[in-house]
């Protein structure tokens, strides 16, 4: 029985991106948390948040953080569901739904970044 490899060509890519996004998040989340919770009590208030969101550097960092965290979280969820027989039977739907959730989370966060 020949194995169908065509459909599985994205799995190694998803695995690699999970590792890479994990490493990147280790840095970005540390920075994010440091800036918002470890410097001063003012950093968490509305004006300080808006000031950061209007700076190009922070905007880029937040966009990157959002992208990688949304991918890592929903790809992780995908891996967990695929660990079940339900996931095995409905692989296409699980892949599509979790990646859709990733896109929704990313787009929604980007929307907030842009309009605020």
């Amino acid at each position: 029985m020949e194995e169908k490899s065509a459909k599985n060509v994205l799995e190694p890519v998803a695995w690699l991106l999970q590792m890479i996004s994990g490493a990147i998040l280790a840095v970005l989340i540390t920075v994010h948390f440091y800036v918002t919770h470890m410097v001063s009590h003012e950093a968490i208030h509305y004006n300080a948040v808006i000031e950061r969101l209007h700076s190009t550097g922070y905007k880029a960092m937040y966009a990157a953080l959002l992208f990688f965290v949304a991918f890592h979280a929903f790809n992780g969820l995908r891996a967990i569901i695929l660990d079940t027989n339900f996931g095995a039977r409905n692989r296409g739907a699980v892949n599509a739904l979790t990646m859709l959730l990733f896109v929704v989370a990313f787009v929604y966060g980007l929307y907030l970044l842009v309009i605020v």
Partner: protein
Amino acid sequence: MVEFRIKRFDGSRSYWQSFEVPLKKGMTVLEGLLYIKENLDSTLAFRYSCRMAVCGSCAMKINGRPRLACETQIAALKSDKITIEPLDNFIVIKDLVTEFEGFFKKHERVKPYLIRDDISYESPVELIQTPEELKAYYDFTLCLKCGACYSVCPAAATRDILGPAAITAAYRFCMDSRDRGEDKRVDVILSDDGAWRCHFAAECSEVCPKNINPAKAVQKMRVKAAIKGIKRIFRW
């Protein structure tokens, strides 16, 4: 005397049954089971063969961990109560006997034999291998196919997966310098139930009776397969 508390299954219902077994110095769990079968209850079903930890038939869950019954000394368990159950993640047929057809079929899927296109039976040529080349895969040849690794794999608890033993077998052949069949095995490893279901819980390595470290083989095999899989994308 030691209490053997055994999880029985008669095809329709599961129940626990206890037996008192006289303990002799050096007695193994398998000897205890044979004592029960010969003296107390001949309907007790369990697999065994070599009695010396080379065939893998007698793997079962003893006091919560999968072990080979033939090499587990009762005294070493340091308990008056020995709890015995069939391996987890396998379908139970009767008592301590589980279905193994599926497990062996997974081995078949990874093509666990040397693959070369220059094998000639009319004019055979010796395949030379240095001791260093042998060392690269030797440990992984020791697998008994006992199923202990599969029984503790978290992913195997919720889904039928290729499993640590089969992936280790694939790695064993891919690392064999005489083999030319890595490409043929990579598809199996890349499949949905293959290497991606491993998250390095590494419980498999903890329970392997031959200390093969299947967890290591799975990580190494996954990287090999991922590299080949990603290279294939760029050739499209």
